[in-house]
């Protein structure tokens, strides 16, 4: 009797726990979807790996003909004529000039705007200001190129001649701005990276705990003192990270500098001269029809590799600072 009861209850239980076919189908589809999603996530790793692989493998034939030392120490880049010279220094210096110049524009301005947004702006003003900065960040690079040619360069020329008129003694010191010049390129790239610095600085500053500020106010500090002595030092690693990211963006910026800074690779530190950046050189070669065996084709991969390694190093450095901020902030 009891045994029969037990048996009956056991079969009931089995029916209850048995996986229905519908249930199995659900588990299978779940597994498939999960696998597909996993492959998509892996795709980003594949993309990075291919970038590494392609830049190295495609520049290999180039470095077999031009030694690495020659590439990095050569002071001349000429692709025309029989005497081709592939020294990356002029391009590197061109990029450096643009990057530093853009930093001079974007770093102080961006920091002050960031401070204004996080410390001073009433919430109504912030609501208007932030979308405007986002809009500035969304303006295509080509448009900044146009802006440099049609407004910044004429303004630079007008400005220097005006200074030259009222202070003639300064005349020999003033650079003469060519139609395409490094300064105009640097200024517009500074404008382009400005929103990035603003928003990252603002984030870093807002993350500073309120208690720190209040403690400083309690000691009788003015608002400027609280910001300069308490808020900025505590947010420093985030602020520095924003600067580095802006510089890294400037290194990789292409269209605006191609238009604004010119297409003459020359080793110069004069902001009034034409310079050519690494990115502009890649565009220049790509615009012409070059085939795969061509030395010029191979050279852009060598430049691309240099460019990639520089920005990669800067981004890693910025991430270090961000991580540091996470530690000290908590």
């Amino acid at each position, binding site marked *: 009797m009891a045994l029969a009861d037990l048996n009956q209850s056991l079969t009931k239980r089995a029916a209850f726990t048995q996986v229905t076919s519908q249930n199995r189908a*659900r588990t299978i*589809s*779940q597994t498939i979807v*999960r696998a597909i*999603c*996993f492959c*998509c*996530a*892996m*795709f*980003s*790793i594949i*993309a*990075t790996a*291919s*970038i590494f692989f392609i*830049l190295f493998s*495609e520049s290999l034939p180039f470095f077999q003909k031009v030694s690495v030392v020659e590439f990095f120490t050569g002071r001349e880049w000429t692709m025309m004529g029989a005497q081709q010279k592939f020294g990356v220094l002029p391009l590197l210096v061109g990029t450096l000039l643009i990057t530093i110049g853009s930093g001079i524009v974007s770093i102080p*301005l961006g920091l*002050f*705007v960031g*401070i*204004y947004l996080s*410390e*001073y702006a009433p919430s109504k003003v912030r609501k208007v*200001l932030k*979308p*405007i900065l986002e*809009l*500035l960040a*969304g*303006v*295509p*690079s*080509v*448009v*900044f*190129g*146009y802006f440099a*040619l*049609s*407004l910044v360069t004429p303004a630079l020329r007008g400005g220097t001649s005006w200074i030259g008129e009222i202070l003639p003694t300064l005349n020999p010191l003033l650079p003469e701005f060519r139609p395409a010049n490094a300064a105009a390129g640097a200024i517009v790239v500074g*404008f382009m990276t400005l929103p990035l610095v603003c928003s990252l600085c603002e984030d870093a500053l807002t993350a500073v705990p309120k208690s720190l500020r209040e403690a400083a106010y309690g000691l009788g500090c*003015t608002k*400027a003192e609280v910001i300069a002595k308490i808020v900025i030092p505590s947010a420093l690693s985030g602020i520095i990270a924003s600067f580095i990211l802006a510089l890294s963006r400037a290194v*990789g*910026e*292409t*269209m605006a500098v191609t238009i604004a800074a010119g297409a003459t690779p020359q080793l110069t530190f004069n902001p009034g001269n034409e310079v050519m950046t690494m990115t502009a050189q*890649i*565009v220049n070669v*790509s*615009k012409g029809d070059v085939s795969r065996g061509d030395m010029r084709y191979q050279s852009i991969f060598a430049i*691309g590799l240099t*460019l*990639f390694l520089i*920005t*990669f190093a800067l981004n*890693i450095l910025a*991430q270090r600072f961000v991580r540091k901020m996470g530690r000290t902030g908590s």
Partner: protein
Amino acid sequence: MSSPAFLSPSASTIKRRRKNFIFQSICTLAALLAVSILFILVGKVVMDGMGRVSPKFITSMPSQMFPGKAGILSPLLGSIFVMLLTVLFVVPVGVAAAIYLEEFTAQKTRLVRFIQVNISNLAGVPSIVFGMLGLTVFVVIMGLGKSVLTGALTMSILVLPMVILVTQEALKAVPKHYREASLALGTTQWQTIRRAVLPSALPGILTGIILAASRAIGETAPLIVVGAVGLVTFLPDSLDDRYTVLPLQILDWIGQPRAEFRTAAAAAILVLMALLIILNSAAIIIRARAQKKV
């Protein structure tokens, strides 16, 4: 009646207050300057190009000979074509990757963290490097030619990190109890994602897609590397046609010596910016609606 001496501020306090005022003024001026940059830029383009924008400008073909008659039909359609294809390619992959990273990985394993770091690194790679990736993989290895398809595929990889990151943010913002309520009803995880998580994350994901689309419209450098050309006087009618895009047409006109082309460039910039503003306001409207619902 004068106030007692101990109430009047000391010299050092006055100095500190003045410094405080100066500092605040500098910050405010900086913000004003940043805003005025955008207004000056837009104002300059409008002044230069407004007179040139007309229905005829949009519906006629570009030209390097007749600046007065030149239009932007082929580059405009090229841009829209590349944008639509890019969105088509990038959305499934980007959203699926974000779902994997946010929903299917309960513990953040080493692999997941590696993928995450990798995505943010990929977001920082200069756009022109993506062009070189596209040139080697799609043009040389896969033999797709210098076509619209190559351009869109390259652009998809470029905007992929952005789509993943924005979608992840949108998924993170979905409250945890949505998932728990759904799972408690006996659904599988995928059913929960599809029926409970995705619908409520949709506005955020759409915003990300729109941002990706506007990036795809504005970027030029990688397309030059994968072989988009400056002047195309026919309409692309298949995926392997040669093509041009608006920013490239602008670049071409800026490089022309005659001043009329400069005007045409400004007019083309206006059309490009109008496109971007339409896209961005769509994103803002979607965001505002979603906020109202919650």
